[in-house]
């Protein structure tokens, strides 16, 4: 068993409207970032977990997304896994 860091990204699906994204877009425009075309706001979740290997860690993270971390009706998710160096803080 070793320690892994799962980096989970959850983003609203394209067909779902994203009020926060629109608000941030307006905010950026108001601040003069006129080059911005579109913004979508989702969640990022860092999960430190024990697993036998990267594959197992990834599989478990996907289960976590399906059950809790994402609402797959309206959101899609991506999972990345990396090993944690002993003693490193998240």
């Amino acid at each position, binding site marked *: 068993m070793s320690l892994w860091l799962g980096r989970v990204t959850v983003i609203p699906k394209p067909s*779902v*409207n*994203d*009020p*926060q994204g629109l*608000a941030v877009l307006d905010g950026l425009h108001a601040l003069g970032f006129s080059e911005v075309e579109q913004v979508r706001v989702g969640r990022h979740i860092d999960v430190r977990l024990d697993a036998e290997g990267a594959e197992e860690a990834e599989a478990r993270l996907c289960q976590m997304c399906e059950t*809790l*971390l994402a*609402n797959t009706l*309206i959101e899609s998710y991506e999972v990345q896994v990396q090993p944690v160096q002993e003693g490193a803080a998240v």
Partner: protein
Amino acid sequence: MKVGVVTFPGSNGDTDCIETLKLVEGCEPQLIWHKSTDLMGADALILPGGFAHGDYLRPGSIAQFSPVMREVARFAASGGPVLGICNGFQVLTEAGLLPGALLRNQYILFHCAWTHVRVSSNRSPWLEGVEEGTVLRMAVAHGQGNYFADTETRRRLVEQGQVAFEYCDPEGNTSGESNHNGSVDSIAGVTNEAGNILGMMPHPERSSDPLLGSADGRVLFESLVRSMAAGAVGR
């Protein structure tokens, strides 16, 4: 008739539901702890408003796994009447007991105000005998009440009479202005196919006393008592 009101950690509308139900003839309200798997003989259930588990991650996302929810699902499957108010509605959609999802309000901010809703379909024990088209004045207070469902689901909802409430003006007309949180098709409340599960963002329990601004919300509880008395609800 026993009405069980579930307390999740972070629920804050539970006491309001209990106090309001005490005023409705024929209702005997009782609290049910979220870790309980015993519904204590309840004839109907309410999932109240609040911020279960802080509404962290997504509203209702963690509460859907509380031990009591398995019993709620079983109770609902047998036809028992279940009402989800505000956060309770969010829990029901997260748990998949009602269609759709509740997104952040269109203008992002938490919004507490008096609104009007129109009864679009009364196909529910919670609305039995309430004439369709009736306009009710109700309190709303939420940050994530922006109802979303895809086009196909919405078509089905309308066809099957599952849209219980729409935001409207005092005359009963829907418009962008009366749709304060940006819900699709101004939807303020929906039922499951059978009609026994109702989820709504407005607060009937806060709209049941004229001294506090409106007594219109009482019709839900009175309808429930009527339909239970008539034996119209299966268990």
